[in-house]
């Protein structure tokens, strides 16, 4: 994911969370203010928005159903637009990369294959997965490596930086390459019996 996409998803989650918190607090405080049974009561200020009737019979008002249905339609449309945007983003990984000026483009699979074949033969690496994503003014390369047993992560990372990543940077220059590397280890059985 790009920083912009991360910001957008997090901003959307923040808005939703604030809305949910506000609605929840309104319900809880309103209930505590009007509840008939004994127990903790709260005194709400006069400006607090409470339903006019004690029964909260909003259903009696003519505006309730149409406005709720309108809000639901908007929510459905927005949700589907969001899902479409996410799937479009996912498909953009296969877009060709522009090389230099106009007129030259590089198939993203070509770069992916080249990087993958160089990375998976590094010493101490069991498997490698490469994902490419265009970001604004740069190329984002995400590398996931599964380490072999007994290989030192620091050395593997140095080799990756000075080898495949340096070569990709040189090849794609002047387009800057940003790399996100994740080193993992696969679970395996104990090599020593007890």
């Amino acid at each position: 994911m790009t920083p912009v996409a991360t910001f957008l998803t997090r901003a959307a989650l923040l808005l939703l969370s604030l809305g949910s918190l506000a609605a929840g607090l309104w319900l809880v405080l309103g209930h505590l203010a009007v509840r008939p049974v004994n127990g903790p009561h709260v005194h709400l200020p006069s400006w607090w928005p409470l339903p006019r009737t004690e029964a909260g019979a909003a259903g009696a008002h003519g505006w309730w159903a149409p406005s709720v249905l309108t809000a639901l339609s908007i929510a459905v449309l927005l949700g589907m637009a969001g899902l479409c945007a996410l799937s479009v983003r996912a498909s953009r990984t296969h877009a060709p990369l522009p090389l230099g000026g106009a007129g030259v483009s590089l198939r993203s699979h070509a770069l992916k294959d080249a990087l993958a074949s160089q990375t998976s033969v590094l010493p101490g690496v069991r498997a490698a997965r490469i994902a490419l994503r265009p970001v604004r003014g740069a190329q984002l390369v995400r590398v996931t490596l599964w380490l072999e047993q007994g290989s030192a992560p620091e050395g593997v990372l140095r080799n990756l930086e000075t080898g495949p990543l340096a070569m990709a940077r040189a090849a794609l220059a002047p387009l800057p390459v940003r790399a996100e590397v994740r080193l993992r280890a696969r679970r395996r059985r104990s090599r020593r019996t007890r």
Partner: protein
Amino acid sequence: MTTTPPAPARLPAAERGSTTVTDRAVSRIAARAWAEELPRGDAALPSATVVRTGRTASVTLGVTLPYAADLAGTAERLRQHVARTTAALTGLTVPPPEVRVRALAGSGPATGGRLGRTRTGAGTHACATDAPRTADASAGPPEPAPAPARRPWSPRLGTALLVLGVGTAACAYLLAEGVARRTGHVLPGAPRPDVLHRVATTSLADPTTLVAGIAAVVLGLWLLGAAVLPGRRDRLPMTVRTTGTRATLDRSAIALLLRDEALAVPGVTSARVRVGRRRATVRALAGYGELDAVQHQLTASTGSALETLGVTRPPRPRVRLRAAPHRSEEAGA
């Protein structure tokens, strides 16, 4: 080709005829022109298509480039060569062709990076020297001081997808139910009275209001945490030497490495490792050997293993060694 034949008698221009170069010839000329500029090993003929408008031939090439530094410069140089050569040989106007690089050839082992490090035994680590850098001068020299590692934030894609999917589905259901009710229908399997009606008629004093409110607050807190916390607690940032690179190491990978280290210490028969974000705990059983000596060696090997992880802030080690049960019985007897 537009060579003028030797004409002894001058004919009027309209009767001289004209030479046409077929599109196929143009495309083959363009492909040859591309291949002749590449080294022999990479001289696979590209595919070429030609679209002609008047006396202008637009060429599109699908090529394989050798994977080397400055792909853009190489492609640009070859484009200009193809345009010049094709124009000279056909007499047409040929703008620089559109080039689509379909594959990168010769992406064998990268330069440098052949000095891997493997652990040979307990506590002994070969020291890695930075591999000599060749040919990649344009990538800039590696920074002498390691860049400070920032923890990469999770994009929260899974959370966003979950919220979006569930929320959209729920809204769509309520919408369908409400519309059906207002048009005098009932959705199959829908509760009666329907959800919207119940929401509208439930009073604030009803206990369900309290339950719903608490649920909304909990959901809001969870979403708030997802929005503002960095996430990705399962990885630790590593120190990198090149700008524009970020690296993380999974905590589970650290646990496996530490476990291997512990089991390589003579005397240790089993080990359990938990790696937190600040502390790594190794709990081991000693099956044989002097307990103090094994503890000393285990502590040393764990400490040195943590230092070679390349993690910016390595977790502090904590080593607990116990004698295996059968052994303590022997010692007690």
